[in-house]
Each structure stands twice: as structure tokens, then as C-alpha cells.
């Protein structure tokens, strides 16, 4: 067939949405976009659970969506859920119930995953015009900020104050003060101020805002949207903000003819964008009209193009890992050496380990972050590395992947994986194998720069006859490396069933 149709459902905190789109040559043609209000966030953020009524309603909505998708012959509908689901204590039961009643498997996106999907889609659409930017995405349940430098993301931060959440949290205060907006601003600033210490931004930095709240603000301000983008000058935004900041939700409802739910979250989200714009120092807000479903559907319709976009995005993941390592005062040359050596080793025994590109990325990230624990204490630094990495938030990685990186980092030096290690035992069986394999590689990579002196400029690795021969050149002695290599190759041998040999050619 010359064309393809895909559908995706996004279960958000205030609505369920579905997009059905068709691939027409190089453009995506949206056939249908459905949106049904459903305030799951209200349940989760106040009761910590999704109520039975909402589950019933959700199932009814999903069943009607499936019917619509079937109208176009679409059988499989990728279905994702975000904050409201993620934070519900009863999410497991809900998933099961929904599966029973609708046949749909909901994939709950972790916060960074959700943001990644959005950032990646934004960067795809922007096609590289933002070099330096503060990118923000306000969902109803959470706020995501990404700082981009020279075309790559170097820092991301997710904060659990989305528009709806903010209004839920601050609701009790609202009645007490006329300066409610100041409370909101101060509350948000406590989060943003931390970032100021980490980053220095200048006027050349773009400020990009996305999420349906900024879309709403744009439509209230009568801003024209061209190809999913729009821009609002800072002065105009400030004027708009000033015109609504002292209004009550009721007054906002009347003024803009909005339903109550939307009116309630307008002020908190407007405040959020104001603070972020001030933080970015930019004179213009660039709005990006983007929906989760757009990104999901694109991936289905254009798998090849998506892979390209994704591999570009992986550069950003590495970039932000480096930025993180820098915050922990990393040894740049050592990290680079371990990164390069491990990469060569990984590539040389592809047929032995059978791992994917994504897993190679995990290895590389572990190479970058493996020593960050030294920032805490040199003694048992690998334990601290493990603890720190687990708590990091890197764009594009989910908890599982982060946990794998943490494990690999833990096993890069002294320890090897043991069933009695809780961190290791808690992994899924296939992940334990993965950790063992990646650890085996990083251990050799690390051994090759044991002295942190980068004695080898580069290495070659050739797998042949059950032997991995690593050849390299050294100007001087490399005894420490040779000793470390022989120590670490034992585990390598155990994991892969092959011998690793180090051959050093003396150049002098």
C-alpha cells in the first residue's frame, strides 16, 4: 500500500486525546483528532488515586476511540499515559482494569520519557534553528525545562509543578489573598532559582514554550500560529499577564468565556511562563504548538526518519551526561579515554554480545558518569556513583535505563556483579545479563587508563578465534595498565567466554 495510517492515544491529566493520521509522501495528514475532557489529575493530585468513576469513563472513552480507529482500519493504537497515571497509587489495578475492559495496554511514560518525546518532536520541527535555548514544556501535571547549547541539550530538569497541579496545590491559599499571583510566582521561583546557580544564560538564548496552556494563552492573545510555531514579545506577554494576574478564576471564566477547569489553571501557568521567560533573559517567547500524539504518530509513520531524529537526540543525551559529570568535577581526559576504549571494545565483539545501539549508548553514558562518586568520597567511590546516577534525571532515559547505567558504573572497578548485591538482584534477569556484559567492557576500558594519564592515544581491537586482541601503542611504560588489564580481563573472560589480550607496541 502506498500509504499508511497510524493512531495514538494520549491519556493526560485533564483530557484523553487521539490522533489518527495518514502518511502522504513526506507530510503527515491528520485525519481525525479527538479530545475528551477527563480530569484524572484532579483525582491523583488530591486523592492520590484514580477514582472508579473516572476509570469507567476512561474505558468508555477508549472504547469509542477504538471504534473510530477501526473506521480507518487501524488495529493497533499506541496508548500512553502521563503524570496523572504515573503518580496514582492504584495505577497497577487501573492498568489491568482498562486492559480487561478495552483490550488496550497503556504504557505509562516516565516523566523524562514524556519530556523526551516532546523535546525530540520540537527539535525535529525546528530543524536546528535554535542553537541556544531554554525549552519548556508545561503539562497539567509537570514542568519540564531543557537548556540547549550549540544545538544540543545539555541540561534538563523536571519539576512536579504542572499547571493543574499548581492550581490544586495552591487552591487552599487562593481565598485568603488578593495577591495570589505573587504567591504563585514565589512558589515557582523557589524551583527556578536553583537553576540560576547552575547555568549562565545570555540574551541570545531563545525561550521556547510549549504545552496546551501556552497554546491557550496564544489564542487568548490572538497570536497567529504559522506551521506550529508562534512568537510573543516579552512586553506583550507581560501586559497580558498583568491584565489577568489579579483576576479570580470566576472573572477569568467570564472574561474569556472559558470553562472553569481551564480558567483555574490559566493564572498559574501564565505565571510559570513569565518566570521562565525572565529566567531565560530572552525578549521573545517562541511558542511551539505540539501534541504528544503528533510525536507518537510520526514515529509509527516514518520509522526511518524517526531513527535519524532519534540518533541526533542521543547526542544530546551524551551532552547532558557530560554536563552532569562536569558538575561533579570530572576528569575530562580520563572520561574521554574510557569512553573511546569502551566504544571500540563494544564494536569489536558485536557478534559475541549481540547488543543494540541503545545499549551501546547506555555503556557510553556509564563511561561518562562512572567516576562521579569521587565527588562525594574517593573511598568506595563506585558506590557513590551508583547512588548519584540513580537519582539523576537525564533526558531520554527511563528509570530502568538509569538503573542499568548506575549498576554498570558500580561494577567498573573493584566489585563484580554478585547475586547478593541488592542493586543487582533487583534487576530483571535480562538486565542482569546486560549489566554483566557492559560491566565487563567498561572494566577493560577503565583499566586501559588506570593511571588517568591517557598513555594510549588509541586502541584497536580484533576478535578472532575466541580471542580478543587489543593492540595499542605507548610511548613509555604502561605497567599499571597492563596489571589492571590482566586483573579485569578475568571477569571479561567469564562473561563472554573469550580471552582478551593486550598487545602494546613500544613507539620508542
Amino acid at each position, binding site marked *: 500500500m*502506498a500509504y499508511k495510517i497510524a493512531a495514538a492515544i494520549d491519556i493526560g491529566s485533564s483530557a484523553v486525546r487521539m490522533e489518527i493520521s495518514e502518511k*502522504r509522501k513526506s507530510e503527515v495528514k491528520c485525519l*481525525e483528532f479527538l*479530545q*475528551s475532557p477527563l480530569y484524572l489529575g484532579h483525582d491523583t493530585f488530591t486523592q492520590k488515586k484514580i477514582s472508579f468513576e473516572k476509570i469507567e*469513563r476512561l474505558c468508555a472513552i477508549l472504547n*469509542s476511540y477504538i471504534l473510530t480507529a477501526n473506521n*480507518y*482500519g487501524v488495529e493497533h493504537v499506541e496508548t500512553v499515559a502521563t503524570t496523572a497515571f504515573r503518580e496514582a497509587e492504584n495505577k497497577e489495578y487501573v492498568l489491568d482494569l482498562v486492559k480487561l475492559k478495552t483490550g488496550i495496554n497503556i504504557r505509562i511514560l516516565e516523566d523524562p520519557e514524556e519530556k523526551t518525546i516532546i523535546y525530540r518532536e520540537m527539535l525535529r520541527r525546528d530543524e536546528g534553528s535554535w542553537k541556544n535555548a531554554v525549552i519548556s514544556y508545561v503539562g497539567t501535571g509537570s514542568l519540564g525545562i531543557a537548556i540547549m547549547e550549540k544545538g544540543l541539550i545539555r541540561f534538563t530538569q523536571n519539576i512536579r509543578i504542572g499547571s493543574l497541579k499548581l492550581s490544586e496545590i495552591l487552591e487552599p491559599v487562593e481565598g485568603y489573598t488578593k495577591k495570589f499571583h505573587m504567591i504563585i510566582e514565589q512558589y515557582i521561583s523557589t524551583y527556578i532559582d536553583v537553576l540560576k546557580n547552575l547555568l549562565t544564560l545570555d540574551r541570545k538564548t531563545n525561550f521556547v514554550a510549549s504545552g496546551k496552556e501556552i497554546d491557550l494563552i496564544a489564542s487568548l492573545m490572538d497570536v497567529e500560529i504559522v506551521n506550529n510555531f508562534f512568537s510573543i514579545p516579552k512586553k506583550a506577554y507581560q501586559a497580558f499577564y498583568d491584565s489577568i494576574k489579579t483576576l479570580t478564576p470566576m472573572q477569568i471564566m467570564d472574561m474569556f468565556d472559558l470553562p472553569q477547569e481551564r480558567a483555574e489553571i490559566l493564572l498559574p501557568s501564565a505565571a510559570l511562563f513569565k518566570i521562565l521567560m525572565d529566567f531565560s533573559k530572552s525578549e521573545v517567547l517562541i511558542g511551539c504548538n505540539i501534541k504528544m500524539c503528533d510525536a507518537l504518530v510520526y514515529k509509527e509513520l516514518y520509522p526511518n526518519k524517526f531513527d535519524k531524529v532519534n540518533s541526533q537526540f542521543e547526542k544530546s543525551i551524551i551532552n547532558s551526561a557530560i554536563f552532569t559529570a562536569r558538575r561533579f568535577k570530572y576528569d575530562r581526559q580520563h572520561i574521554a579515554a574510557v569512553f573511546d576504549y569502551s566504544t571500540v571494545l563494544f564494536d569489536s565483539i558485536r557478534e559475541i554480545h549481540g547488543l543494540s545501539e541503545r545499549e551501546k549508548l547506555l555503556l557510553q553514558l556509564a563511561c561518562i558518569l562512572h567516576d562521579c562518586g569521587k565527588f562525594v568520597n574517593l573511598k568506595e567511590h563506585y558506590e557513590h556513583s551508583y547512588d548519584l546516577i540513580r537519582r539523576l534525571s537525564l533526558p531520554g532515559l527511563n528509570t530502568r535505563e538509569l538503573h542499568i547505567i548506575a549498576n554498570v558504573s558500580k561494577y567498573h572497578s573493584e566489585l563484580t556483579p554478585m547475586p547478593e548485591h541488592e542493586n543487582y538482584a533487583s534487576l530483571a534477569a535480562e538486565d542482569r545479563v546486560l549489566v554483566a556484559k557492559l560491566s565487563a567492557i567498561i572494566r577493560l576500558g577503565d583499566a586501559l587508563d588506570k593511571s588517568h594519564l591517557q598513555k594510549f592515544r588509541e586502541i584497536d581491537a580484533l576478535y578472532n578465534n575466541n580471542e580478543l586482541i587489543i593492540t595499542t601503542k605507548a610511548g613509555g611504560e604502561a605497567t599499571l595498565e597492563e596489571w589492571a588489564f590482566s586483573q579485569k580481563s578475568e571477569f571479561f573472560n567469564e562473561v563472554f567466554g573469550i580471552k582478551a589480550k593486550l598487545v602494546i607496541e613500544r613507539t620508542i
Partner: protein
Amino acid sequence: MDFTKPSYYTNRELSWLDFNSRVLGEALDESVPLLERTKFISIVSSNLDEFFMVRIAGLKEQMHAGFTRPDPSGLTPSQQLKSASVRIHEMVSSQYRCFNRALLPALHDKGITFTSYEKLTERQTEYINDYFDDIIFPVLTPMAIDAGRPFPFIANKTVNIAFRLQKETNEHYAIVRIPSVIPRIIRVPAGLNDESYLFIEDIITQNASRLFHGYEIVSSTGFRVTRDADLSIDEDDAVDLLSEIEQQVRQRQWGLPVRLELERGQDIKTRTFLTSTLGLQQDDIYLIDGYIDMSCLLDFSAMPSGFQDLTYPENPPAVSAEVSSKSMFDLMKEKDYLVHHPYQSFEAVMKFLDEAADDPDVLAIKQALYRVSGNSPVVQALIRAAQNGKQVTVLVELKARFDEENNISWARMLEHAGCHVVYGKVGLKIHSKILLVIRREKSGIKRYIHMGTGNYNDKTARLYTDFGFFTSRESFAVDLSSLFNTLTGYTIIPEMKKLIIAPDGLRTFFKKAIKNEIKNAQNGNPARIVAKMNSLSDPGIIRLLYEASCAGVEIHLIIRGICCLKPGIKNVSSNIKVKSIVGRYLEHSRIFCFENGGTTMIYLGSADMMTRNLDRRVEALFPIEDEKIKERIIDILDILWHETDKSRWLKSDGRYTRPGKTGSEAHIQLHDFSQNR
């Protein structure tokens, strides 16, 4: 300028009664074929029945609830009831006068005679008595009334005979219901060239002694009770709308009585007895000079055979060469296509549905049905489509008044066939006439659309003037898909690209469009509104039209039924002209045409300018963008505006006057105009 003065408005009920008088006018019109005039007599009756069951019942409810707020014309519910009763009394006497003095003799002259039992020949009497014994008697149930047997329940709209009986010195009443399973009018075998008919109640009365052995029959009086029959469904609590409506339909016959029709006779005693027992006021009593319930004449008018000259000449609807020569998909891919029923055949719609049901590339069909005919080919096509594995979604409006029972039965059929049937929206009647077909084609998904001003009903498509519009424009498809999603699921309606949807956007659209004309008029640009609809009653819209008139907007309205606006009032509506057309076909199409500073906007659709259409129904208007079709509609409006024979002009005092006939009957012109389009 204050446009809210009561004197600027006509009461909605009285305006409707005016409309029914215009229908009666067709019965009185000697240029109308005789059997058709008889049919109009019956339509006047069935119209009135509905009016009593819904409107009069509603006014009475308001009155009982102590509701005294006047309507825009300044009348309180009780004043409205009073005036309506006076009007209806006049109308009914005029209706029977027409039937008795004009139609009966004229029919007799043509060889069609309503006879009476006494006038039957011996052979005829024998035949009729046999008919009574074999057919009527077994289904009769006389109900006696005495101390031990209270007054029986008289079901809504049934014709009954009250007998006053005497045994020795005691007086009794007994009631016999005329069975509705037997035709009301019975053909009596007569000579070759004669058609002779008898009302069933004559036969029963004459044979009544067989029902009441041992009693002397003092008198017999035919009567009929009309009851409040508006469904009141608590949709919020209704778990299953389908069964809830089924139950309500059964309960309809239990509503409070709102009218008593009595044969005018000598027996004051029986009249007093019935009136007091039913608890009705003097105003609610209608003494009938003849047989009660003339709606039975509708069936009768089809009975005599061989009287072609007494009916309208056959006017077979046209099928264009384009429709018969190519597939509807190809036709719609090429261009937008408009059919004007009944001048053009409903076949185009059926062909589209049939092709969709059988085409292997069609994935899905979605349709909203309001009223369909019995054994409807539309329903058949949908069932076949479902059997062919298509995804068929049907929106059934169960609340279509007085069609509920009918709708429930075929809704069940559709469900059994595997269609996905959705029963309307809580609080909103789905009145829009919409059909969407999703087809997989080489270049991708293509969606085909039909939207109309009338129901998907092949039978009424021969009697009602309506438009059907076919298109495959993408922007329409996107809007219509969203509308269907909202109606069948739980989605919100996104911003529409082309369609205007009630209840969300219709009122706003009318406001904007009228204000736009006002602005143009004020700036000295051409400003004009030409609209055709069934009813105009929404006070908000009327005020806007007055405003527009004062600003100099020229406004031409063709309104078949209710019109609460008064045209031609100095400084209020001097630029507004209103006419009504009532004739062979029921004018049903809705056209809204705005000058828009020179680039005329034309919208067709399902909505009238009534508050219920704007606020409580799901209606769809759609723009006509094809220039040729636009021109055609403007021409049609022009023909209707200049037709004289079936037109009545509304005057500033709220009365309708007929212009002199010039032989320009619109439907004849339009029939010619619609050939090969």
C-alpha cells in the same frame, strides 16, 4: 431603539394556528383536485391533534404550575389558551363546513358518496350486517358504567361512542371504543360507477342493540379525548434511554385530557356527563358537525380507484444523467452535487448509500437518522453494509416526536445486524441530517459526505421540499468526522472549519452574519438577507432582524409555518418582507443567504430559527461554495419569492393575505427547473 415591545411580536401558538388555517385554505381552494382537498382536511385534523397533545398540553401545564410570565407578544399562558381555543373553534367549524358543504357534494357529483345506514339497499345492508358480525363484533368491548364499574379509561385519540341506556326506570351509560384495527371508513359494494362509503360508527350504532340486551338505547354520542402526550424523560437518570423511551411511549395514553370532541347532538345529558367526568373546561369542548377525527380521510383519499383527475397529476422526480451513469464516488470526486427533492429523486442518496454498502474499499459509514420510513431502504442499506463487514455507526434519535416507537424497532434491527447504534445525547435532540463514508483509495483515505435539510426518508422525500448536498471536500470531512465523534463518543467539538453546529455555534453564527449585514448597510454597501425556513420564533434573532431592518438591510423571508416576527412596521421592520408558501409539497428546506458585501454566503441545513433549534438540538448548517450551485439556489429562491399561486404575504398586523393568482405555481416551475441537474 427598543425592539422588545409586545406589539412587535406574534404569539407562537397563534402563528402556528395561522399556518394550519393556510393548510385548510388548500382544502377550500377549488383549483386543488378534489381528493387532495380531502387530504388537506385530514392534515388539518392530524396537525391539530399534535398541537393539542404538545402545545396546548404545555400551556395547560404552565398554567397549572402558576406560570404567568407573558411571552414576547405579551400574552400569559391562560390568555394564549383562551385565544387559541377561540381560533381553533372557528377553524374546526370552517373545516367541517368545508367538508360537509363543499367536498361531500362535489365528491358525490363525481360518483363518490358517503352514505348512511338507512340509505343502504337490502343487499348492501345484508353485506354490512355480515361485516359487523364477522369482523366488528368480535373486537368490540362495551364497558358499562355504574356504581360498581367506574368510568373507564379513555385512551388518547381513540374514537368512542357513549350510549345512554335505560332499563325500567334506571339510567346507565356504556362506552364502546371504535376498534382501531379495522378501517374507520368502509367501502360498501355499489354499482359499477359508484363508490360508496360508510363510517364504522354508523354500523356499530345501528347494531348496538345486540350489545346491550334488555336495555333501551336512549341515545348514542360519538366522542374522542386528546391527552397530554409530550414525553418527559429524565435523561440524567435514564440508565437505558431505549427502554426508558419505550416505557414512556406506553404511558403516553395516560396523560391528562386536554380536549374533548363530541358529536353535536341533542343529548345534552351525555355531554354534561362526559365533560364533568373528564374534568374539562367549556373551552376544551369541541362540538363536531359530523364525524369525529377527520385524519382518517388520509387513508380514504387513496381508496377510490380510477379517479386520476381528482388527484394531483403524477410528477415523477427526476434522476439526472450524471447520477444514473456514473458511481456517486466518481461524481463527488469531480464536484459538489446538489439534489432538490421532491423535484429530483431520492435515488441519488440511495445510490450513494448502496454503493457505500457494497464497495469493497469502503471502510466505514456513519449516519444520523431522525425519522425514516417503514421498511426503510436506508436502514436496509446500512444493515447490508454491516453484513459486508463495514464499520457502521448509526446515530438514532429516539426522541423524534411521535416516531419513537417506530424508531425503537428499527434501531433494534440495526443493532442485531452488527451496526454500532448510538442513541442520541442527553438533553439534545440530534436533528442534523448527516452521512459520512470513509473509503480507502489509492492515494489515501478519502471521505464522502451527504448532508441535508430533510430526513433520510424515501417516502417523505416525495412530499417535502428538501436539499441534499454531496461533497468530498476535505475540510467538510474533517468537521463532520469531529461532529460524529462528539455525538457518538465523549469528545468536545473542536473549532469547525466549515460547518456551523448547534448548540455550540449556530446562534453565534447567525448573530455575526446579521451584524455583518448591519455593518455593511451602515457603510453604504449592499446588505441583504434572504432566508427560507419552516419557523422563525426565537426572540433574540427577531430583535437582530429588526435591528438589521432599521439599519437598511433588505430582508426577504420565506417561512412556511410559525413566524413571530411582524414585517413592515414603520421604524422597526419596514425593510422586512415575509411570505409563506403552502401547497402540494410541504416546504421543508432551510436556506440562509447573506449578501456579505457582494460575496454571497449561502448556508443550507437542518435548523430553523427557533429557540429549540438554536439551543437544544444538534443541528448542522453547511456552506455552499460551488458557484454554480450557489447560482442555482439563488434562482430557486427567486422562483419561490415571485410565485403567487400558493403564497400568502404576512402583513404588519400579523395577518396573511393571498395575492391574486397569476398561474406561477412554484412547484411546477421548480420541477422543470430541476430536470437534468
